C-alpha cells in the first residue's frame, strides 16, 4: 500500500492575520507556520495503512523553502520520503495551477491512495484534492472520516460527512481522499523519529524536472487572481445586559432580540 500525502505549510490557527496596507497579501514575518492540520490526519492515516499493509508513504509538498520544516515534521512522524516542489515558478498560483504542478509530480510515482487535507486553513479553497483527482483521472472522496482498505488492497470503503450524517462509499483504488478531523488522532513525532527524519530524503523538484510550461503553473497558470485583500470589519462590543436576577436579564435579552435585532 503506497500512499502519497499532499501537504501544505500554513499559518498556525492561533496566528493573528494582518493584511498589508496595500492589500497585496498578509504580513507573514511574525507568523508561526505549521503543517496544515487537516494534512496531519492524512499523514496519520497513510502511516496506519503502511503499518497494516506495508509499502511507503511519500509527502508531496508545494511551497517555499520554509515548508521544509513542515516536511520534516511529517518525516519525523514516520513518513518515508518527500518531494518538495520548491521552484518560485510554482508560487502564487490558485488551486488549478497548484493541482497541475502536483499532478505532474505525482504522475510518474506509484500510489494506491493520495491523501489531501479537506482544505488548507490559509486560503480555505478545499479545491486542490478534487482538481488533482480529475487531472490524474481517478475518483475523489472528500471530507473523509473513516477509511477501510480491503485485504487485497484494491478497493476502499470510505465514510464521508454529509448533512445530518455520513455516506459510506466504495471506491476502487487508486483514489484521492481528503481528510477531515475525526479520521484519526495524529501521532506526535518521537525523539528517535526526529533523529531519523534528518537523514530521510527530501527531493527538490523544479519546473524543468516536470517538463511543464512555466505559463501553466503558479501565478501565470492560475485561473483566478486575488485582486486585493482586506481585513474584515471589526465587531464593536455591544450591550452588556444588567439586571438583578437571571430572570430579569433573560427577559431584557428576549425583548431586545425581538424588538431591536428582530431575529425572533
Amino acid at each position, binding site marked *: 500500500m503506497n500512499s502519497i500525502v499532499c501537504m501544505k505549510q500554513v499559518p498556525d490557527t492561533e496566528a*493573528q492575520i494582518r493584511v498589508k496596507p496595500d492589500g497585496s497579501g498578509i504580513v507573514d514575518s511574525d507568523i508561526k507556520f505549521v503543517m496544515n492540520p487537516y494534512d496531519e490526519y492524512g499523514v496519520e492515516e497513510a502511516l496506519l495503512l503502511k503499518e497494516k499493509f506495508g509499502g511507503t508513504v511519500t509527502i508531496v509538498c508545494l511551497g517555499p523553502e520554509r515548508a521544509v520544516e513542515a516536511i520534516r515534521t511529517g518525516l519525523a512522524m514516520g513518513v518515508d520520503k518527500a518531494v518538495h516542489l520548491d521552484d518560485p515558478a510554482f508560487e502564487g498560483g490558485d488551486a488549478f495551477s497548484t493541482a497541475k504542478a502536483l499532478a505532474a509530480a505525482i504522475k510518474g510515482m506509484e500510489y494506491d491512495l493520495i491523501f489531501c487535507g479537506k482544505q488548507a486553513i490559509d486560503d480555505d479553497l478545499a479545491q486542490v484534492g*478534487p482538481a488533482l483527482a480529475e487531472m490524474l483521472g481517478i475518483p*475523489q472522496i472528500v471530507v473523509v472520516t473513516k477509511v477501510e482498505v480491503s485485504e487485497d488492497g484494491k478497493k476502499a470503503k470510505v465514510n464521508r460527512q454529509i*448533512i445530518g450524517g455520513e455516506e459510506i462509499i466504495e471506491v476502487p483504488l487508486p483514489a484521492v481522499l481528503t481528510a477531515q478531523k475525526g479520521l484519526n488522532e495524529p501521532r506526535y513525532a518521537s525523539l528517535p523519529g526526529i533523529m531519523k527524519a534528518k537523514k530521510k530524503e527530501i527531493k527538490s523538484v523544479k519546473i524543468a524536472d516536470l517538463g511543464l510550461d512555466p505559463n501553466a503553473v503558479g501565478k501565470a497558470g492560475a485561473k483566478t487572481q486575488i485582486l486585493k485583500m482586506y*481585513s474584515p470589519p471589526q465587531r464593536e462590543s455591544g450591550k452588556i445586559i444588567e439586571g438583578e436576577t437571571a430572570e430579569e436579564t*433573560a427577559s431584557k435579552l*428576549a425583548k431586545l432580540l425581538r424588538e431591536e435585532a428582530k431575529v*425572533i
Partner: protein
Amino acid sequence: MAKGIWVFAEHSDGSVRKVTFEILSEARKIADKIGEELCAVIVGNQVEALADKCGPYGADKVYVVEHEMLNQYTTEGYTKALTDLVKQHQPSILLGGATVTGKDLFPRVAARLETGLAVDCTDIGLDDSNQFFVKRPMYAGKAYAEVGFSDATPKMASIRPNVLIPSPPDESRKAEVIKVAVEISPDDIKAKVVEVVKIAGEKLDLTEAEVIVSGGRGMKGQENFKILEELAEVLNATVGASRAAVDAGWKLQSEQVGQTGKVVSPNLYVACGISGAIQHFAGMGTSKYIVAINKDPEAVIFGKCDYGICDDLFKVVPKLTEEIKKLKKD
C-alpha cells in the same frame, strides 16, 4: 462567445434548497446589467417538477438533466451531467452553493473545464468595467479577498448559504423548461454510495441554520447540553459547539463551529459558556447578531458580541427559553 449566467440548482428531499434562491436572486441583478439570460440547471432523477420553483426567483430558463443514475448524488455522475451541458452551451458564469454537494462537485467540474473557481464566496458582483468578481473569506474569515478571473469560461463561484438575500418570489414569472438527455453508463461512476447513515436528532446543518445555539467549555458536561437543546427548540435553531466541547467528547465533530470546524453565518448566534478564542470567532464572526452568556467577565467574547449577559448560564439559559416562549405566544 460564452454567454449566459447559470446557477446549479441544488435540491434535497424533493425540494429546491434555499441557497439556490439566494443565488438566483443576486445573479438576476448581474444578468440584467450585462444583458445575458439567467438559467438554472437541475440535475437528478424525476426532478422536472422542481423546475417551476426557479422562475419566480429570476430564472429565464431551466435545464432539467434527468437520468436514473443521477437519482443519488455522486461526484462522477453529476460532474459528467453538468460539464457535458456546459460544454454544449458555454455559459459565461456558473454559480452554485458552497454546500456539502457544491464543495465536492464544483472543484471537479472546474478542473474538467479547465476554468477558474472561487469557493465559499460571501458576495458576487461586477466591477466598473462589468467584469465578474467575488469576495471571499480566507484564513477562516480573519482576512477577506476580492477575487477576479482569467479569460477561461465559465467563471465559476460557489456561494456560502445564508449570506445573499433572496428576492420576494414573483409567482407570475415563468421560466422556459428544457429537458436534456445525458449519457451515463455504470462504468462512469467508480465511487459508489453503498449506504447513508443518518445521525439521529441532527437537525438542519449548521452552515445553513439561521439560528445557532452553541455551547463551550462552560457547559461542563454532555448532559448539560439539554438546556441548549430546549432553547434551540423554541428558537428553531441548530445546536453547535466550540472545539473545547468537542474535544471533551460532549458533542460530535460535525457540530463544531470554528476554524477547524464549520464556518457559519446565521442571523443569530447564541454562545453559551464560550470564551471566544480567535479560532472560534473565525468560524462565527460573520453572524448577524451574536449573543454571549458567560459568567467570566473577562471573556473576550464580550468585546465582540451584540448582547452579553455576564452570569451563570445554567440560570440564564432556562429563563431565556421561558421568556422567548412567552414572547412567541403573544
